[in-house]
């Protein structure tokens, strides 16, 4: 690394740290007490656990877009594989021991994932953590060279990947069709809707994280494939 780069980085980092320190020391006492507001309103929200209530009711629009971000990343990964086809996917260590360990662990992990999802309504846990745990078990499955039947069928996988966002958008739109504000669920239905959305999200998050792993070019890889488009396009 060049000396200039080092000096620039050090200056930038130092200036940045000083400015942040100043901002923290000089900060005013906040006038607004949002946690109290959350507590006051939580009875009307779709979940009793405050964080789940914030994520899936008070600020559900953020979460909706965030699910979009994850799906978007997966779509880009798919698109790049189309532009640059991979060789056959031969990942997996496939030793009997690993297989045995994983077949033992897998049901346990699925159980943990389901519990974490269910817990999210009242205590720490929820769709994102559950999705991550399920994705991790999927990864273990792949490491062992096992393949879940049907998951390689593109359309079915696509549908499951998009399920979270689709259900969420539908849940957002339904109140609007009934004449309320977008995302404003009637109090009687709020809890059900939150649970349905959470289940769909868990599936899509788990598959999405797994797909991001799977769609990178595989480690055991053939020669670089020629661009399959023949005609040169403008725009280089």
């Amino acid at each position, binding site marked *: 690394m060049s000396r200039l780069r080092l000096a620039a980085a050090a200056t930038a980092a130092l200036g940045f740290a000083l*400015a942040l320190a100043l901002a923290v020391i000089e900060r005013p006492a906040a006038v607004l007490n949002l946690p109290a507001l959350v507590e006051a309103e939580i009875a009307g929200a779709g979940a009793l656990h405050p964080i789940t209530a914030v994520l899936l009711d008070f600020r559900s629009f953020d979460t909706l877009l965030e699910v979009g971000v994850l799906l978007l990343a997966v779509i880009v990964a798919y698109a790049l594989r189309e532009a640059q086809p991979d060789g056959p996917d031969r990942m997996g260590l496939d030793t009997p021991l690993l297989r045995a360990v994983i077949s033992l662990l897998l049901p346990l992990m699925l159980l943990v994932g389901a519990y974490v999802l269910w817990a999210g309504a009242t205590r720490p846990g929820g769709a994102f953590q559950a999705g991550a745990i399920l994705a991790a078990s999927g990864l273990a499955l792949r490491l062992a060279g096992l393949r879940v039947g049907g998951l390689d069928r593109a359309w079915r996988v696509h549908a499951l990947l998009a399920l979270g966002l689709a259900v969420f958008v539908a849940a957002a739109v339904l109140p609007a069709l009934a004449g309320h504000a977008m995302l404003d669920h009637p109090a009687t239905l709020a809890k059900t809707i939150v649970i349905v959305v959470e289940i769909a999200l868990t599936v899509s998050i788990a598959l999405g994280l797994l797909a991001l792993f799977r769609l990178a070019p595989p480690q055991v890889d053939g020669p670089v494939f020629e661009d399959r488009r023949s005609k040169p396009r403008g725009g280089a």
Partner: protein
Amino acid sequence: MTVQPATANLLAWLVMLPLAAAVLTMLLPLRLRAAASLVLLAPMTLLALMLGAALATHGPFVLALGGWATPLGIALQADGPAVGMTLLTVAISVPCAIHAAAYLRGHAEAEYFWALFWFLWASLNTIWMSTDIFNLYVGIELLGLAAVGLVALRGDAEALAAAMRYLLAALLGSLAYLIGVALLYGGHGSLSLAHLAQTDHAQATTAVALAAMSLGLALKTALFPLHAWLPPAHGGALTPVSALLSALVIKASFFIMLRLWFALAPPGLSTAATLLGLLGAFAVFWGGWKALRQSRLKHLVAYSTVAQIGYLFLFFPLAIGTGEAAARLAWDGTMLMLISHALAKAAMFLAAGNLILAIGSPRIADLAGIGRYRQFSLLSFGIAGVGIMGLPPSGGFGAKWLLMQSALAGGGWLWVAVLIGGGLLSAAYVFKVFRHAFIEGPKRDRFEDPPAALEITALVLALVSLMIGLAAHGPLTWLRLGTPFGVSE
């Protein structure tokens, strides 16, 4: 102003419909994706027009999403700038989509282009309307990843390197922005811009937060000297993608910056404003100079974007600490500059793409002889060039005129010089293209014939960019609705 829920919901429909379209175009069979997208352009246009009508009848209004009022919930707002940008997005996206449908026919990239396109649209509309600083963060992340994905679509080494560079810049920019969010929430306990605007701004915390956020957003807008990622990304992408990126995506981060400065700017900020203006001035000259030196057509247009971004940042020194009249002129000029640059640059990229298709080469030198055979493509490029150079009657001229009046009212002679010098430079690089096009080169008389849809979309956008200058007065009054600049003349 309270309105019927159905009216207020228009704001959210403008985000939900593109998201649904993204899911749909991901799931539909390949051959239906473009068709479905083209059909969905109609309801999008209709929704945006209805929103415009609602603003005109009711004045600015907000939608509390989920029925939760701020600061607990997130609110979308319809004010002049938000609705104006939503309509501008329609005006750019519709021709670009039609162009893309023709351009991508039968190509592998088409497979996922449409899903990314719809995500891009959803995130843009979110950014125009949102009043919540964290929601804006998620919005720019969605926008950034969609834009990066679109750049990477071509899948060759050059496109992937450009996408990677763009992604790194976008990620760093978002983190800088997020640090500002952390400081603001830590200091004021709220994420809603409306609430933050009522707090005391004369504090180090607000100033540092605003500085960090502005830095991150300037990186995402590619303000000189943070612009290095832009030319390879905008110059190397597929043609309709280049048009969308240059016309709309960089404007989104600039727009957030405007919103933040309105809500949070502490008093006595003219030094920082002058600094931003100076960077803008450098951008105008550096971008223009680099554009002149490019050998590839689309890279020339990309550097022209770097230069034109500079004009937008002249807003800060012209509007801050200069008095009411000058500030209003600066606002009008900046809005008109933003709109006319979006239209003209989209037209220019589409026209450049058509020229490249016709000559089968990205190089400007290979344009020799095309002036005789493909006047139509060249015409669109030329009309767009009128807007970029800022000649009458284009919107670019009107914008520069307003900015110049603002500079004169505020006594900023330096900015007048920037506006004139930048205009000369842009004339130089636009004419460079024409000079090559009219060279009677080696006897070449065979050029490819781009499909009519490609030519017409470019021409329509170019003509609109020309006409907007003639009809600017009404829209500009309207764009001031709900801003600190008022409605009165």
